[in-house]
């Protein structure tokens, strides 16, 4: 991107396209994260259905390409849910995953996508309420940010 190009305009909430429903992709490990989602379900804790899941064996498997692919395929936001630090089923897969998420955030910023659209959360399998809360917060955050710049540019 050259300096003369106009950056994608940041959309303020009241300028949202009508009926914007964020599409959010969440990568979950099949240990704590999957189980936290199960716990939220068992307790019927409600959260917005804008979040869809992709299961991975461990968040250590989260690849920079997977995150970028999610954005390319139309996600307005992406987040990763892992076991608590120090409690990863695969010892420190979640730490490797975290450093990749941080790196990807820089990549996103570099191509003009807000880094806040990507986030990582750590929770134990019993924390259904936390799982629901995180989904809600993320949907709210993306609602504020508006559709992904990839979508608006395409338009």
């Amino acid at each position, binding site marked *: 991107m050259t300096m003369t190009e106009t950056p994608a305009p940041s959309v303020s909430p009241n300028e949202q396209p009508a009926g914007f429903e964020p599409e959010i992709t969440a990568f979950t490990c099949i240990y704590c994260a999957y189980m936290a989602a199960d716990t939220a379900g068992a307790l019927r804790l409600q959260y917005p259905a804008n979040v869809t899941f992709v299961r991975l064996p461990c968040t250590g498997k989260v690849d920079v390409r997977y995150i970028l692919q999610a954005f390319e395929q139309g996600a307005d936001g992406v987040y990763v849910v892992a076991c608590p630090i120090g409690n990863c089923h695969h010892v420190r897969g979640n730490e490797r995953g975290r450093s990749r998420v941080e790196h990807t955030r820089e990549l996103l910023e570099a191509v003009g996508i807000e880094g806040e659209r990507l986030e990582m959360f750590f929770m134990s399998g019993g*924390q259904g309420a936390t799982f629901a809360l995180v989904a809600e917060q993320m949907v709210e955050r993306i609602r504020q940010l508006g559709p992904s710049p990839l979508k608006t540019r395409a338009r």
Partner: protein
Amino acid sequence: MPNPEERAALVIGGGVGGMRAALDLAEVGIRVYLVESTPGLGGRVAQLGFMFPTHDCVLCRGTSDHGYGCTRPSISPAFLDHNRHPNITIFTNTLVVAVEGQAGDFRVMLSQEPRYVDPARCINCGECEKVCPVEIPSSFQAGLSTHKAIYKSAPRALPDAYVIEYGPYCEDCGRCARACPTHAIDLNQFFQTITLNVGAIILALGYQLFDAGNLEEFGHGRYPNVLHSMQYERLASRSGPTEGIVHRPSDGKIPKRIAWLQCIGSRDQENPFCSSICCMYATKQAILAKERLAEVGCSVFVMDERAFNKEYNSYYVQSREHYGVEYVRCRVSEVREDPATHDLILHYMDEMGQLRRERFDMVVLSVGTQPPAEAEAMARLLDIELNPSGFCRVDKFTPLQTSRPGVFVCGAFSTPKEIAETLIDASGAAAEVVRLLGFNPNNQVSHVLPFLDESDLPPEKDVNGQPPRVGVFLCSCGSCIGETVDLDAVADGAAHLPGVVYTERLRFACFPEGRHYLRRAIEQYGLNRVVVGACSGRTHESLFQRVVREVGLNPYLLELINLREHCAWVHQGQPELATRKAQTLVRRAVGRLRPARALHRQTLTPAAAALVIGGGVAGMTAALAIADSGYEVHLVERDDTLGGNLRHIYYVAEGDNPQQLLRDLVNRVLAHEHIHVHMRTELTAQTGHVGDFRSTLRTTHYGGFTTETSVRHGATIIATGGRETRNGYGLEDHPNVITQSDLEKLIAHNPQALEGVRSVVMIQCVRPPHLPDYCSRTCCTNTLKNAIRLKMLDENCQIIVLYKDIVTYGFREQYYTEARRRGVIFLRYTDARKPEIEPAGDRLKVRVADLSLGRPFEVMADRVVLSMSIEPAEGTARLARLLQVPLSPEGFFMEAHLKMRPMDFMQEGVFLCGMAHYPKFIEECISHALATAGRALQVLSQKSFHLGGVVAEVDPARCVGCLTCVRTCPFGIPEVRPDRPGVGDLGGSAYIDPSRCQGCGTCTAECPANAIQLLNYLDEQIMQL
């Protein structure tokens, strides 16, 4: 006489010990009946939020649940309703009412209380709970919350179904039965009597908590902010009533000061034993409080801090120094409450003798362990003896054997103990049962899939290369999914996806009729890929994998998506978005399946022999247990005699004769037809993997020449032991400064040499400078044993023991009591001011700062006896490198998991027992050795076993050997092998051993050349977003 081919065993108690024992027996082909008196499995461990010192969440590692999809299941996956080990039958809500017969042939009668809910038909929808009018306190949440009379005993209960607590609670109104969409509830069920024939019985009854209400002075039950430790555990647990947010019951405020009072119901007149676990769990709770509650003050009131296992001491030091948990050395005798604020006031005397008064927001009573409630009844029923404290009586050298042949015991029922030791006992008891009954190779299950009985399955169809024909089956789970998600719309959408040839909606996919329909549709429409949209993969993936396998499809060609817990149940009232989400999930699943490949595990036949390294008590015990079961054992001993440290133990505190045990073991080992003893021999090389190791043994013969032998074996057991260090205080040459084992030898062989000795000072915790600080576990009891002997020889001999903490856990506490009764003087010192010894002619001047007097104290001693640290045996580090297994910070071998896998390594087929693991007593070495034998037998007894599965695979044609995977792998598995040419045939490429890979995929995500793929999670599968 039961059918000898049947070989059945009964395990009583469905806690962590009983589950482990049942699984170990099932694995070698013994039929197991697991009886549990409550409605669910898991026992005490299921209630724990975190384990010490690993802070692992028990949800994942323990029994209450285990992450789904684990390729190397620990315990609980084998008990999930749809993944049950075929050799295990579970009876919950069941009591044993009669036992007759003898070892090898018991007839057992059980009485099963009805659940009133059929677990096979319960879909956990919770409709019953909504309409139930009765609320009762939750025992799982230690009374901190309530549940209905129809309830699930725990969020992830096993069996995974509701149950009715009938008793005095249920009003029999029938509303639940009417609300149940699957007609799973039948209020007219009756008690059932079940009769079984079994060859052996394992008691895994566990323990019960001391009832804190019995000690009125602590105010439990009267003062709202006094909790017992299990209540606090639930409060601080992520699966507790508040998801781990600790607050005061009286006003909901976050506590600023919390006190833990130790030894509530332990180490007193009524309970003359140490409960062994409370010091560590209180430390754990205090550390977690410090981590989570801002500026909380934590004080632990403790007599001795007993941190006597691997990494426990550093945990305790971390608690004190890093987290600032305060440890106050005293026993608090009373708690008072300020009625206005419900704050709690403690009066106590500190170590300097000062009276103090302090105010706390919350007091936690560290309640001890008591014999299980049913101990006495069970003892009468089984005709076994209990010890004076009401626990199961065992002898020192047969720690898993009750007083009745054929009846074994494991876990806290024999003496208070923690999870790791309970699991050791459980595997050990299983080995004892195998020794008694033999095992049945024809009754073993294949591990192609977890716990799948392959016997009546059709051959698998080869669908590789065929164009995908995907079937999408959507379960409405009654109305659970259908009422929120528009399944017609989802099915219509799915029908248009590339590769999808068939879509269908089912009412209950998991019910027999649903499974039948699935199988028929797969065959009728020639489907070669299947998506099931239903409920949790955690509970149902294995069920549907089995369904597709039953019609010849590879199980990895199934994709289960969770439309219930992950969609319909959490998006009620958002039908449009929920339907959009379901469509996305189905699209991804189909996309994931199109490039999916059948996965096969490599099949191998194990070598029917074991290698045991070390010929001490642990090594010999393990060798005998394996050889008695009919397998060959190569026992390798570096020395020219068997026995190890046991040769230098002449008597034990309990009074048994260790030399008799030594003779017994040596004679049996030398005479055993299946044991090949390699004396004066060391292991010099080992290659291969589980089931197929090849080892090179180098024997040094008399005269100095050496020969090498090569052996093939399926399992390796490390039993190399430890040794007492010597160089304390630099006074080794002084004739009257000796170690405890020197003193033991004198007392046993030359007591005359001790005549005229009027004054002895014994110093505990003497550590040579090269060793890290840890508790050597056995020294306190050893010191007491020698002190008592000295007092028996001459009651006027003055004995002063200088100690930091007296660590006499379990029933060893009685020797501490007896030593004090006999007049042994105990003075505590701290690391800040260690005792000093100054030779004064033949005698010695010992100087120590007496904490209670607040001034130095000097005494002249005829003998100074040092309790020296126990360190790993010489060569431990070299052996660890050779076998590629890790060492702990203390220098001992490091097992796969401190709590859940105390005898395994991450490297399968290699096991660990005895003092090579950590210093321990003879009986603990024996249990540990039996446990490794049990584990090794699981490998050796398999007709065939399977490697690989969901593992990472390197494409050598893309690998440049950059070592990224080697650095990244959390388990240290990848290696760059020069014999595998990489890119352009240059250098070496990475190799990931499929027998060791844990399947996390971390390396695949990090490989800069994308040369590694995780099977079943190929990039092209996941990128279909």
